[in-house]
């Protein structure tokens, strides 16, 4: 006991290394996080009212996608340029189940996750034969094909007109305001984050990291490449599917132009900016990418005097592109890596 109190970060056994919360301190911080998240709406109401809460909700949904994307990109080293399409599959599944068949909310979310996960496995199948880079092309193809199906399968998806989705209900209680929805989105994001943390320290997560570092070597030590790659793709898609169904229930309207290639790229940016392979990174990346455009709205007017053709999506795309390149060049570990280094600096200060 004395050793572990003296050297706080020293791991003395495999069991200890595998624990979710290694120290009482991390349990404390997690508890504080839960309390903080529960209290957040009041702070938000003080600061910016419903608009702020709306952005917070979107952040929670984006964080779920980023968590799934990070499993694929950060842990397994597989590229997906089609995550917006998975989001669309989840959203439309939820929309069809809820508005046509009247399924309850908890069931539509679960089913959206499962169905999208299944489709993810199918789309991930090319990953077995091809290297990571080609997979980017395969998922890009999936994105375009999904777009096309959504617009053309009008009987099922409403085509270009989109679909109306009911607000989630529990008994007679409807989660139809920003505040009420927050208490669905935030706990769900937290739960899925915890699940991801558990997944990453399991045999599965470690196998994925082995695949990322060298798939040939991983196979040589007995990792079943085919199984783990498709499973990673499936789980990642399932996360996007859950987020998609949340988005559908929150927006209460979905159309084909909600799920574009640009959005798929933004999920990639979240992982790169946040920090590949890190749970904290996924969340930080989701916060960064969701909040950056909101902050940029202030810069928009000033820039428009120089570029009269400037429209907001362009400004957003330019900043996303720049951020992506700059982070890859100067901060490959992302915000999470920066945070870790700041913390290390202060724990070892003044050395």
């Amino acid at each position: 006991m004395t050793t572990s109190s003296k050297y706080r970060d020293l791991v003395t056994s495999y069991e200890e290394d595998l624990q979710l919360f290694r120290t009482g301190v991390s349990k404390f911080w997690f508890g504080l996080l839960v309390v903080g998240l529960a209290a957040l709406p009041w702070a938000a109401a003080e600061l910016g009212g419903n608009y702020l809460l709306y952005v917070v909700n979107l952040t929670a949904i984006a964080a779920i996608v980023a968590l799934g994307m990070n499993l694929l990109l950060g842990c397994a080293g597989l590229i997906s340029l089609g995550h917006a399409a998975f989001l669309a599959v989840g959203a439309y599944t939820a929309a069809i189940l809820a508005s046509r068949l009247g399924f309850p909310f908890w069931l539509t979310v679960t089913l959206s996750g499962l169905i999208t996960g299944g489709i993810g496995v199918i789309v991930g199948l090319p990953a077995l034969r091809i290297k990571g880079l080609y997979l980017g092309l395969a998922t890009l193809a999936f994105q375009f094909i999904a777009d096309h199906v959504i617009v053309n399968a009008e009987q099922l998806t409403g085509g270009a007109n989109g679909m109306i989705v009911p607000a989630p209900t529990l008994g007679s209680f409807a989660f139809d305001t920003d505040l009420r929805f927050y208490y669905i989105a935030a706990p769900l994001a937290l739960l899925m984050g915890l699940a991801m943390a558990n997944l990453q320290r399991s045999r599965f997560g470690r196998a994925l990291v082995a695949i990322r570092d060298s798939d040939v070597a991983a196979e040589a030590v007995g990792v079943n490449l085919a199984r783990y790659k498709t499973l990673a793709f499936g789980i990642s898609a399932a996360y996007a599917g859950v987020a998609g169904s949340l988005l559908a229930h929150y927006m209460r309207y979905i159309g084909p132009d909600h799920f574009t290639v640009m959005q798929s790229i933004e999920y990639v940016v979240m992982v790169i900016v946040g920090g590949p392979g890190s749970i904290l990174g996924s969340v930080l990346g989701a916060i960064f990418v969701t909040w950056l455009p909101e902050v940029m709205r202030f810069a928009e007017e000033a820039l428009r005097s120089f570029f009269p053709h400037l429209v907001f999506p362009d400004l957003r795309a330019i900043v996303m592109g720049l951020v992506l390149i700059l982070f890859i060049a100067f901060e490959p570990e992302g915000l999470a890596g920066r945070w870790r280094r700041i913390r290390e600096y202060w724990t070892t200060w003044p050395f």
Partner: protein
Amino acid sequence: MDTLIQASLSGIALGCVYSLVALGFVLIYKATGVLNFAQGELMMVGAYIYFSLVTQLGLTPLLAFGATLVLAGLLGALIERLVLHPLVDEPPFTLVMVTIGLATLLRAATGMIWSHDTFAFPSPISEGAIDMGEVSVPLVDMWTVAVTVALSLLLFVFFHYTRLGTAMRAVAQNRYAAQLMGISVDRIFTFTWALAASLGAIGGMLLADISFLHTNMGFIGLRAFPAVVLGGMESIPGALLGGLIIGLIESLAGVYLDPILGGGTHQVLAFVILLIVLMVRPTGLFGATLEKRV
């Protein structure tokens, strides 16, 4: 029958544009190992540069064409120097991410400078068409095919009979051995990007002439990916043939499949082909087998 021939002819012209974009793509991939997602955007920027040179500076078509090639080449070289050169030893995965960022950046910057409106392209080629029996071929299409054939021949001569071309092939075969033979790999990389951007600009000008000048042209460039994969990622003849096949299929599907499966099917079909090729024969028609050493 006439519809078939007509659709095939315009498919060949479209296919030539895909071939040119695919060619620039293969050049970069072969020489530097970068999967360049921004090739379609380079094509688009080239077309816009020509547009501005003609409509705003009032240059003659030939002068504007030459200036566009130079400017696009400079842009390509600049991108390589500023963005990719510092990251040259990073894994391919990272470099792909960077080109995705570049593509986003270029498309948005183009929209910011020239707006997202659709422009008619100030074409030096007259509107007319040549009638051959029941079929009429627009002059633009003929020019496109002629330019593509001429460029392919020029490139063939360049790669096989000039010092620089041979050096580029050497770098593509083995970067380190080439360096040991006294070839400046840095310079070859920069030149490759310049060449690819110029080729892309030619494709862009032809495409803008066939259809319109629009910021979505970059997405059309993405459809050169199926062409590249179909031909085999590292094969120049493969890229040319792949482009032709994709163009033909798209054009024919536009006539025969769209009425059945809904509008826009022909635009997606290329990606369906991409998926099938990746699953059945990931190395494409002319590709070498993949092998990897630990």
